[in-house]
């Protein structure tokens, strides 16, 4: 137990801070889900990041990373959010698929996909859910049929984040004749391949942040299958573990928001309900507890542990703390909370947009109801 940074870790923080100070765009980029221009501006930012070798610091050097440890990754993330750097348009790739590829991919697959992922040259979308396979993901119906050295993919995917503008997707497909968790495979396909149709779906905030994907006899090389045929469910659960347990939502995101919330409270407290201070304190406690939990998880993983079902507790905790934090801000703002940023009286931080975004948290990456089932069944041992 040693909760201090080493001299090397402090030096690393200084290095990250200096680089970001020199490179982070002074004006915020248009959101990557709003328009093609916003998306491409974020791709450009990923390339800038890669020029400083900051694409994905935890990956091995030979695959486009820096070979750093998880504590260094947390420090990087802290500085990244502290600097107000652009959102990671390739988060499906670098935070979800990347770690899974490193665990399950062949050397050739890693060489082929990881460096271009780290550089933003190829941006990824996730294609797991289907109209009839949401929380019950094992109900996937889209099929993969091996034909020589290729797979032929067919089916209907939906709620694919980033798929409107992204280059590649990783999807879950079924070998015909198989059922439930057995017979699923994780296969990559280019979103511009012949037979792929992508239809944007507008989110409640007006952005085209997700899409449905139709696949009609889409031919991809068998090389694009991660792991063995039929191993897809196992691999997806590992991916979901990374997603929920560690990488999807950096604590730094909430710590920055909490710091802004404290400033908002100081600026408005004379006109706000004094009882709201307890919520500001609570928001700080939540963000702090989440950060400590992630440091603990990182330490455990570095000592050789694996992420398990406790990852589901994280997903519930950050999604609920996010909503509470944003709700507190709206309560402090009172009647001006509903104003958009462009309105003359609006707060400099777009709390209402962040609140609307936070409402998605309990749904994506596996609904919180499913997470509670996982906790109850796999952590506590309750019967199915």
């Amino acid at each position, binding site marked *: *137990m*040693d*909760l*201090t*940074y*080493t001299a090397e*870790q402090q030096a690393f*923080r200084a290095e990250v801070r200096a680089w970001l100070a020199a490179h982070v765009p002074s004006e915020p980029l248009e959101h990557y889900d709003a328009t093609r221009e916003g998306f491409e501006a974020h791709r450009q930012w990923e390339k800038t990041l890669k020029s400083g070798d900051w694409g994905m610091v935890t990956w091995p050097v030979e695959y486009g990373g820096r070979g750093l440890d998880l*504590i260094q990754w947390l420090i990087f*993330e*802290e*500085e990244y*959010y*502290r600097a107000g750097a652009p959102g990671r348009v390739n988060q499906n790739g670098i935070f979800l698929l990347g770690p899974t590829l490193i665990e399950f991919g062949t050397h050739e697959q890693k060489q082929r996909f990881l460096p271009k992922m780290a550089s933003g040259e190829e941006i990824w979308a996730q294609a797991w859910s289907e109209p009839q396979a949401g929380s019950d993901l094992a109900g996937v119906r889209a099929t993969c049929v091996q034909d020589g050295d290729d797979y032929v993919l067919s089916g209907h995917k939906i709620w694919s984040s980033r798929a409107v503008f992204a280059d590649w997707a990783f999807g879950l497909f079924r070998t015909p004749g198989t059922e439930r968790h057995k017979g699923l495979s994780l296969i990559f396909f280019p979103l511009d391949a012949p037979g792929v149709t992508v239809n944007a779906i507008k989110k409640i905030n007006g952005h085209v942040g997700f899409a449905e994907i139709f696949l009609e006899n889409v031919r991809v090389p068998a090389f694009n299958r991660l792991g063995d045929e039929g191993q897809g469910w196992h691999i997806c659960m590992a991916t979901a573990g990374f997603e929920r347990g560690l990488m999807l939502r950096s*604590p*730094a995101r909430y*710590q*920055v928001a*909490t*710091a802004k919330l*404290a400033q908002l409270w*100081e600026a408005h407290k004379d006109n706000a309900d004094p009882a709201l*201070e*307890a919520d*500001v*304190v609570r928001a*700080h*406690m*939540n963000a*702090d*507890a*989440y*950060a*400590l*939990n992630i*440091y*603990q998880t*990182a*330490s*455990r993983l570095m*000592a050789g542990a694996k992420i398990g079902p*406790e990852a589901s*507790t994280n997903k*519930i*905790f950050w999604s609920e703390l996010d909503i509470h934090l944003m709700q507190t801000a709206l309560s402090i703002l009172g009647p001006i909370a509903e104003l958009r940023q462009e309105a003359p009286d609006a707060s400099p931080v777009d709390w209402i947009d962040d609140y609307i975004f936070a409402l998605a948290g309990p749904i994506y990456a596996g609904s919180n*109801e499913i*997470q*509670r*089932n996982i*906790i*109850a*069944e796999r*952590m*506590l*041992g*309750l*019967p*199915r």
Partner: protein
Amino acid sequence: MDFTLSEEQLMFADTARTLFADSCTPDHWRKMMEAGVARDDARWASIVETGLTLVLLPESAGGIGLSETDFALIAQEAGYVALPEPLVESAGVAAPMLAALAPDHAVLADPLATIAIAHPLNPFVANADSAAAILLEKDGEAFLATPDQVTLTAQPSIDPFRRLFSVEWDAANATALGTADWDLALGRAALFNAAMGLGLAQRAVDLAVDYAKERQQFGKPIGSYQAVKHHLATAQVAIEFAKPVVAAAAAEIAACDVQARARVSHAKLVALEAADKAARASIQVHGAMGYSWEVDVHLFLKRALALTQAWGTPTFHRARIAARIFSQPMGPDQTFARESENA
């Protein structure tokens, strides 16, 4: 930066767990309640024999001189069995305070002795009647008296194993020990109460899980229903996010700065909230059985209730966190920052 516990730390916690699991079962409490006693001398003797009372005591006072991290793990195990004896207040708070003031005091040399503490923040003193000595406060100074040198008035608690007393005393009948660190005593007590809260919470969940696996309704174990699962999963989430706060508070308490005080307060708030949430969920999952005296959950509920308000109310502890928020820099690089670095 390393958030993992050492083998030795885990070993001590293991020793405590085994000892308590054998000697502090609900059957043991039931017998004590029937007999109207709050201390089992045989159990206390084995606690002393195992060295658990010496963990936080400095070597200069005959102790082992380990850290708050080590003792917090023991306190968590004490919470898991709702230990009746005052291990935490005596060996975790009062004895280290006395050792800092008078390391050679005879009370510290008596292995079986317990020490009670009358902190200015608490209106009552727990287990004052069975203590060999009571630490008392006047204008920041510490005094020591035996129970027969003071007037004790019993203040029955809803928790049958918390024997509370109001204390009237006269400095003329007590030994003056000089200025004491009452803030550190409060911090340790809040921290170890938080650690006990983790244990109380986990036990309440575990009892409910055992029951929900057995109890059948509509032809299935009730634990297979989502409504039941979700109560317990929600309580487990609260536990999982209190654990690292308690661990960090234990690791940082010695810094004695505004961040350390906020962490300790945070730990006490969330660990006892988790205990309350878990105990109430457990009662709900047990249904009418959960509301009966016969089922053990209510003991954990009552202990959590008592510890929530003792050693600083939630309002008191929230104010200490607010002091950190509004006096120190905020942000993701501040998780482990110290007041001295920001000065």
